[in-house]
C-alpha cells in the first residue's frame, strides 16, 4: 500500500487499467448475544449457571459484489440500516468481512468521521501532523502539505492554539482540509461533505470537483440524493444488506425513491 504511493509513476501504468476497488461476495454477520458479557466475572458466573451463550445473527451484508473503476465516483444509497456504513468500514479495513474479499489498489483514505484521532490537548499544527501520520505519511510529506492545509482551512493564524479552544466550525474546517489534502488514491466518504458555512461549503464542492478531475476514486455514502446525482457516475442501492440495484446514478436514485414511495403507501 505504501510503496504504491512512493513509486506512483512506476506503478501508474499497469494499475490504471485495474479497478480501484473490487468487492467480491462480501458477507458480514454481526453477532447479537442475548446476554452480553463484558467481563471475566460475567463469563465465570455464566459458566456456573449453565450459561446462556446463544446469540442472534444479524446479516448486515449478504453476498455483495461490485467493482469501482479508477477515477470513478461511486454512490452508495439506501435506507437507514441497510449496511452502507458497514460496507464502507469493510472497504476501509476497520471491519473484517466474514466471507468474501475486498481488494483496493492504491492508498485508501476513509472519511467515516471528521477529525479522527484529533487530540484536544494538542495544537492545530500538531494535530495536522498527527492526522498525516495516521494516514501513513512521513513527517516530510506532511510538512510539504502543511501550508496548503492551513490556507484552505483559513486557520493559519490559529496554528499554535490548542484544539480544545477551537470553535466547532473551526474544528470541522481544520479536520476537513487536513483529510482532503492527503492526496489519497481512493476516498471513502460517509456523509461528511457538508461542513462549515456557505462559503466554506462552496470551497469544498470546488475542491471535490478538483479531486475528481485529478482521477481520485471516490466512494460516497449519502442520504443527500441531489449530491449523489450531481457527483456520482454510477451508484448502488442497498436494501436489507443486499444489492437491490446497481447502475447509472439517475436510474438507481429513481428506483430508491420508488421503493421508498411504495413503502410509504403500504403504511
Amino acid at each position, binding site marked *: 500500500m505504501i510503496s504504491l504511493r512512493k513509486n506512483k509513476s512506476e506503478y501508474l501504468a499497469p494499475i490504471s487499467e485495474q479497478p480501484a476497488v473490487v468487492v467480491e461476495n462480501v458477507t458480514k454477520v454481526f453477532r447479537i448475544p442475548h446476554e452480553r458479557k*463484558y467481563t471475566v466475572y460475567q463469563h465465570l458466573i455464566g459458566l456456573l449457571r449453565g450459561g446462556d451463550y446463544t446469540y442472534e445473527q444479524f446479516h448486515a451484508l449478504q453476498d455483495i459484489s461490485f467493482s469501482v473503476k479508477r477515477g470513478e465516483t461511486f454512490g452508495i444509497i439506501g435506507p437507514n440500516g441497510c449496511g452502507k456504513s458497514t460496507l464502507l*468500514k469493510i472497504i476501509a479495513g476497520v471491519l473484517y468481512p466474514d466471507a468474501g474479499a475486498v481488494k483496493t489498489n492504491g492508498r485508501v483514505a476513509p472519511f467515516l468521521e471528521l477529525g479522527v484521532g484529533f487530540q484536544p490537548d494538542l495544537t492545530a499544527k*500538531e494535530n495536522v501532523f498527527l492526522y498525516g501520520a495516521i494516514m*501513513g505519511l512521513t513527517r516530510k510529506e506532511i510538512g510539504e502539505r502543511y501550508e496548503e492545509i492551513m490556507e484552505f482551512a483559513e486557520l493559519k493564524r490559529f496554528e499554535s492554539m490548542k484544539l480544545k479552544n477551537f470553535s466547532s466550525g473551526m474544528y470541522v474546517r481544520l479536520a476537513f482540509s487536513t483529510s482532503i489534502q492527503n492526496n489519497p488514491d481512493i476516498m471513502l466518504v460517509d456523509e461528511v461533505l457538508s461542513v462549515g458555512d456557505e462559503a466554506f461549503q462552496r470551497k469544498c464542492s470546488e475542491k471535490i470537483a478538483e479531486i475528481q478531475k485529478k482521477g481520485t476514486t471516490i466512494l460516497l455514502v449519502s442520504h443527500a440524493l441531489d449530491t449523489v446525482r450531481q457527483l456520482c457516475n454510477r451508484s448502488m442501492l442497498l436494501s436489507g444488506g443486499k444489492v437491490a440495484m446497481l447502475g447509472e446514478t439517475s436510474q438507481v436514485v429513481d428506483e430508491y425513491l420508488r421503493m421508498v414511495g411504495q413503502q410509504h403507501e403500504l403504511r
Partner: protein
Amino acid sequence: MWIYDYRELIHILTISDLRVKYQNSILGFAWSLLNPLLMMLVLYAVFSSVFQITQKQFAFYLLTGIIGWRFLANGSTAAMSAIVGKSSLVTKIYIPRQVLVLSTVLSCFICFILEFIVLSLLLLLFGINFSMDAVLIPAVFIVYLGMVYGLGLILGALYVYYRDLNQIWDVILQIGFFVSPIIYPISRIPAAYYPYYMLNPMTAMIQIFRGILLDNQLPTVPAMATIIVAAAVLLKAGSMVFKRLERRFAEEI
C-alpha cells in the same frame, strides 16, 4: 513492515503520550521519580529496622529492584488500555492496531530509561562505580522491551473483550512484586522452592540489573537465557493472540 511504514505515527503517539504523562514539564518527570524514591524510603525503613535485613547497600538494592520492576508494571498496565483508550483510531480508520500498543509501551520504556539514568547518576554520586559490563545494559533493555511489548499485545487484545482484566492484572502484578527478589535477597528463598523461584523471568531480569549496577558482575548465561526465552515466547504468543482477536476489535470496543 508496519513498524517502518507507520514510524511517524509511532513517534508522534509516543511523544504525545509522554507529554500527557509529564504535563509538558521537566518537573513532571521529577514528580514521577518521586514515586520509586518514596517507595524505596518506606521499604528501607520498614525492612532495615523491623525485619533487620542486612543486605549490603540495601537502599540501592531496593531502588534497583523497584525501578527494574516498574517498567513491567507500568508498561503492561498502560498497554492494556492502549486499544480501548484510543477507540476512535480503531473504529473510524484503519491503522495497524499494534501501533497503539507499541507506542504506549515505548513511552513507558523511555520513562524507564530516564529513571535508570537517574539511578546510575545516584550510584555514581555515592561512589559505586560500574565497570565495562554496563555496555550490556542496552541489550538487556531491548530484551526487556520485547517482553513487555509481547505481554502488552496479549493484555491489550484481551482487555477489549474482558473489561475487568485490569482488576485481575493488578492482583497478578501484586503477587509478581512479592515473588520477585525486589524487597528481599534471593538467599532468603528456601532451597526447596529455589528451582521454581528461578523460573520467574523477572527474577533473572532484576538479578542482571543488580549484578551490573551494584556488584560489577556479568550476567550469567542461565539468567540471560531465561529472559531471552521469556521475551521470545511472549512476543510470539502476543502476536498470535493479537492477530486472532484483532478481527473483531471494531465491533467489540
